């Protein structure tokens, strides 16, 4: 029988606030264990949590960017369960009155477009971190992460393949990063994903029993875990078995998922309204205020770059991977008036140097103005494209203006025909044997003469003029 996978994803994204969701402790990653804690986030009795305004505003940004309806009435609820990463015995989350509902994002799949529904987005606090002892039955608890703000983004079960799941995740990720509300770091856990997957016979409407997959910490692993799980469930069904509803952990090393036993009853969370937190009311005026902070999103930016600058979709994709890079490119393109050459330089040498030196766009020693000037110097023939690479390297190392580097190093292109003619004459005089061979029909030697001339001018000769002179001289 032909089976069809049905996939829904739950994404947890840490918000880039300075402080936790209900207290003034720092959210900074990698600090001394348990140092960023206070009576509120370690759950001492008698304390009063107070909601961080910025958490609400960041969550609203994501809701708007994903076309959700923002609810006026928001309440917070306690989700009760016992686990040592949760010092209070409950997680403060939202349940029956979440921040936002009924949104969507569009993803590109095999050249086509698919709309993935978003069921809801709600705010909640993160839990602490456990390190398990490798020998003894002990765990060590770090509560620095307890109370760090999260938004949970729940999709509709709209995805039908692991590729669609990965495309949806990438889309959410780039939107979050563009909105500057999440750093998107999957290794540090700022962006996490759980997946629900089930199979149903093709053509049937009713969903099959699903498994919940956890512990995938990269886009690739989400896709691999889904692929594995689809094969596993198909195997179970084809043997006439039934899929058990359970949580399964992805094992990156073995490339398989395995059942997480003994957690079935933990799903009885007994949600109830948190008496410590009053309702949150989101006015139209507040929504309108936040709407003005939403930047152009990556997909729209890509479309505009292709239309406005006439660059290929692939280039537009590379240039819009981050807002900072896109802004850098746009500045260069506008200042030099040559968007295609600008795209080549930003995607080529600029990105290569950034990656090599592990720098952010904002840390680059080459500023857009300087790169645009350099491109103008290529355009007006002052330097050749080849020499420009050398100029760029010097700009990167010294932070100096291209004009200064060209003058100081004497890199200016030789475009004076008379001057170049002399050089060509010298080259020809030095190579009588090659001239004979060329005239006898070995035409590929033309390149050799060009090369010798470039060498004699240390690469500064204008190649077009050299070509013209050589053609003239060799046909004499």
């Amino acid at each position, binding site marked *: 029988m032909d089976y069809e996978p049905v996939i829904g994803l739950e994404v947890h994204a840490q918000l880039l606030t300075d402080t936790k969701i209900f207290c003034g402790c720092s959210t900074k990653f990698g600090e001394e264990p348990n140092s960023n804690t206070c009576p509120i986030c370690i759950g001492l009795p008698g304390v009063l949590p107070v909601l961080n305004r910025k958490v609400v505003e960041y969550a609203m940004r994501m809701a708007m960017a994903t076309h959700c309806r923002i609810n006026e009435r928001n309440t917070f609820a306690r989700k009760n369960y016992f686990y040592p990463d949760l010092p209070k015995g409950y997680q403060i989350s939202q349940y029956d009155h979440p921040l936002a509902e009924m949104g969507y994002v569009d993803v590109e799949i095999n050249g086509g477009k698919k709309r993935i529904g978003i069921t809801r987005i709600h705010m909640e606090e993160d839990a602490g971190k456990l390190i398990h002892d490798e020998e003894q*039955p002990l765990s060590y608890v770090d509560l620095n992460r307890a109370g760090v703000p999260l938004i949970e983004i729940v999709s509709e079960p709209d995805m039908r393949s692991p590729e669609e799941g990965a495309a949806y995740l990438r889309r959410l990720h780039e939107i979050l990063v563009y909105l500057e509300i999440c750093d998107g770091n999957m290794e540090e856990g700022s962006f996490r994903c759980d997946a629900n997957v089930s199979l149903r016979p093709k053509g049937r409407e009713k969903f099959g029993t699903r498994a919940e997959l956890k512990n995938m910490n990269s886009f690739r692993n989400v896709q691999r875990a889904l692929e594995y799980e689809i094969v596993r469930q198909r195997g179970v069904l084809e043997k006439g078995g039934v899929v058990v509803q359970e949580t399964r952990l992805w094992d990156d090393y073995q490339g398989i998922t395995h059942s997480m036993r003994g957690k079935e009853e933990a799903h009885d969370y007994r949600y109830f309204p948190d008496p410590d937190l009053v309702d949150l009311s989101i006015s139209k005026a507040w929504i309108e205020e936040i709407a003005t902070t939403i930047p152009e999103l990556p997909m729209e930016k890509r479309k505009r770059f292709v239309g406005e600058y006439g660059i290929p979709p692939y280039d537009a994709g590379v240039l819009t991977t981050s807002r900072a890079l896109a802004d850098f490119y746009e500045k260069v393109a506008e200042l030099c008036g040559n968007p295609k050459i600008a795209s080549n330089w930003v995607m080529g040498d600029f990105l290569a140097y950034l990656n090599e030196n592990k720098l952010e766009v904002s840390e680059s020693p080459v500023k857009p103005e300087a790169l645009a000037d350099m491109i103008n110097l290529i355009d007006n023939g002052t330097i050749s494209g080849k020499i420009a690479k050398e100029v760029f390297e010097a700009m990167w190392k010294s932070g100096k203006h291209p004009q200064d580097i060209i003058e100081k190093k004497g890199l200016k292109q030789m475009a004076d025909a008379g001057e170049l003619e002399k050089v060509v004459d010298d080259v020809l005089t030095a190579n009588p044997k090659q001239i004979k061979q060329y005239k006898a029909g070995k035409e590929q030697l033309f390149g050799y003469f060009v090369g010798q001339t470039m060498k004699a001018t240390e690469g500064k000769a204008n190649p077009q003029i050299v070509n013209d002179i050589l053609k003239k001289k060799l046909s004499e």
Partner: protein
Amino acid sequence: MKISKEEVGHVAHLARLNFSEEEKETYTSQLNEILMYMDILNKIDTSDVAPMTHAISLTNALRDDVKRKSLGTDRALANAPEEAGDFFKVPRVID
């Protein structure tokens, strides 16, 4: 009967409370009395009253995203039953 002894046992387990059989009987009957009282309250017509989560009508108690001094590791661990280095030490829950 609004709530059975089994349900009381289940909820007690979720709350990690260890009850004897007699205790379960006692709490089952007490909880049933409370729930039966709810039946009396349910007779009141509340069809045009919006459900509320708090007894006060205050909304939007918010704070700015400004750091405040934390306890620091030593003070955070001061009352821990067991600690190891900079961490709280606990029995392992899942193997």
